[in-house]
C-alpha cells in the first residue's frame, strides 16, 4: 500500500484529473474519467495492469489491453468513478509517463 500512497502524493502532473491544483477544473471524486495511453511512450512495464486489473489485461508482449472496451476506447480507456483513484496512481507511477487522466475522451478526426 505504500506504493499507492506514494502514487497519490506524486501525482503532480498538471494534466492529472483531480490532482492537487487541478481539482477545480477537472472532475472531482465520484466522476468517471478517461485514461489516455500514449503508445509511443509505453514499453509494457505492466505497472498499470497491476494497479488496474479490473480495467487492464496484458497482451503477450506485456502491453496493456483495455478489458471489454470498444476499439475506440482502447487508447482512451473509460475509468468508472470507483477506479479513478487507482487510475490516478497508475498515471503517477508509470515509469514511462505514458498515461494521463482526462475528464472526457476527445475523439479526433
Amino acid at each position, binding site marked *: 500500500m505504500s506504493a499507492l500512497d506514494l502514487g497519490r502524493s506524486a501525482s503532480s502532473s498538471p494534466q492529472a484529473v483531480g490532482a492537487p491544483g487541478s481539482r477545480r477544473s477537472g472532475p472531482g471524486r465520484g466522476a468517471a474519467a478517461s485514461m489516455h495511453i500514449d503508445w509511443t511512450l509505453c514499453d509494457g512495464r505492466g505497472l498499470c495492469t497491476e494497479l488496474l486489473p479490473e480495467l487492464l489485461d496484458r497482451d503477450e508482449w506485456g502491453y496493456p*489491453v483495455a478489458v471489454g472496451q470498444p476499439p475506440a476506447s482502447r487508447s482512451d480507456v473509460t475509468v468508472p468513478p470507483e477506479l479513478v483513484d487507482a487510475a490516478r496512481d497508475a498515471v503517477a507511477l508509470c515509469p514511462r509517463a505514458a498515461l494521463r487522466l482526462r475528464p472526457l475522451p476527445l475523439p479526433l478526426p
Partner: protein
Amino acid sequence: MTTLAPPSVPSSETDRRLGPQGVRRLFAAADASFAAHLDTFGPLPRGQAGPDLVAELQRAGLDGRGGAHFATWRKLSAARAEHQVRRGPIGLGRGRAVVIANGAEGEPLSRKDAALLALAPHLVIDGLLLAAATVGASRAVLYATAPLLPGVRSALRERTDARDVTLVEAPDTFLSGEASAVVAAVEGRPAVPADRVVRLTASGVDGRPTLVQNVETLAQLALLARYGAGWFRSVGAAAEPGTRLVTVSGGDGRSPLESARTPGGAGRVLEVTGTMSLRRIVEATGIDPARLRAVLVGGFHGAWVPPEAFDLPFTRDALEPWGAVPGAGIVWALADDRCGLAAAADITAYLAGQSARQCGPCLNGLPRLADVLGRLARGDRATWLPGEVTRLAGLVTGRGSCHHPDGTARLVFSSLQVFADDVRQHLEGRCLAGVSSTSTGPGESR
C-alpha cells in the same frame, strides 16, 4: 502513370465563368502551365477567401480526399477560430496558423495526387492560397515526395502570388502522409505519426493552429471558390457530390505490391463521381469486371468488395456493408485466377514492414499477424491459423497512436470474410487460384 488523355476542348469565356461542364473538372486545362490554367479557370478568386468560403464549402459538402472523408469546412472553420483566438493581445502573432497541402500519398497503389500535382499544380496552389487566406495563416507549405518537387517548384515560379509557399519533401513511406507525421516533417523531424490529444487545428506545427489538407481537397476547393456549391453539386451523388480522383490498377497476374512497383507507376487515374458504379470505374480502365474475384477499395487499409456488389455506386453508404470507403480513391482488381489470401498476405507483410515501430502492439502484433496469415496463404493446413489471424487482428485494433494497426486489421478482417472460401480450401490443401469462380461446384461458389 497513365491518365485518361484530356480531350482538347477549346476553353471558352462561358466555361471560364460557369466552370467546367461534365465530370472533367480537375484536369480540364489543356496542360499543366499557368497560362492554360488561367485560360481554363480564370484568375485566383482571392476575394472569396474568408467566412464566405467556409459557408460555401459547407453548402457544397466537400469532404477530405486523403482518405478520412472529414468535412473540409469543419477543419477550416476550426483552424480559423483557433487562429482568431490567438491573434488577440496575448498571442503577439506567434500563434499564427500554418496551412499544409499534403501531397504525400504513401499508399503504394495511389497515383492520383502525383497526377494532380503533375497535371494541375496550379489548382492545388490556388487552393492552398485560398485556404491560407481563409484561416489567416502566415505560412503555406506544400508537402510532396522528391520526384514531384521540381514540377511544383516550376509551377510556383510561373506565378507571382505564390512566392511565400515553401516546399517540404515527404519521405517515400506508407505513413509519411498521416497528418501528425506531416506536421513532424514540416517541423524538421522524422515523418512518423505522433500521439495526439488535441486536434492539429488547435496545435500542430510548433504549437500553431495547423490545417493539413490533401492536395485534391485543395484543388476541389479552388474550383468551388470560383464556381460555387451549386456547380459543385451539379454532378455526383446527393450524399457525395462533385467528382473525385481514383487510381485503378490490377486485374492481371501481378500481386498488389507488384502492381505498385510496376515501372512508371501502376494504375490509371480517373475523375469519377459517386453515381458511377465500381463496375463502370473498373471497365473504364480496360479491366473486364467479369474476370475478377474481388476489388480492393480504399487501398491497403481498405476492404474487398466482391462481384455481387460491383453495381453499387462508389459511395460510403453503398460500400458500407463491405466495410469499404472510397477514401483516397484506390481501386485494385483481383483477377479470378488469383488467390485472395495470397494478395491479402502480400499486403499485410508490407504493412507490417511499414510500422513506424513506435507503438508496442503495432511493432509486435503486425509482423506476427503477417506471419500467421502468410502461413495460411502459403498452404500451411494447421487448423488454428484462421482463428489466430482473427485474434491478432482484434488484439491490435485501437491500440496505436495512429490508425495503422486499425487499418491493417480492417484489411485482414475483410480478407477473411470475402475470401472465406479460400480459407476453407487452403485448410483442405487446395487453392481457388486458377479456378474460375464460375466453374466451382455447388457449395463452393459464393
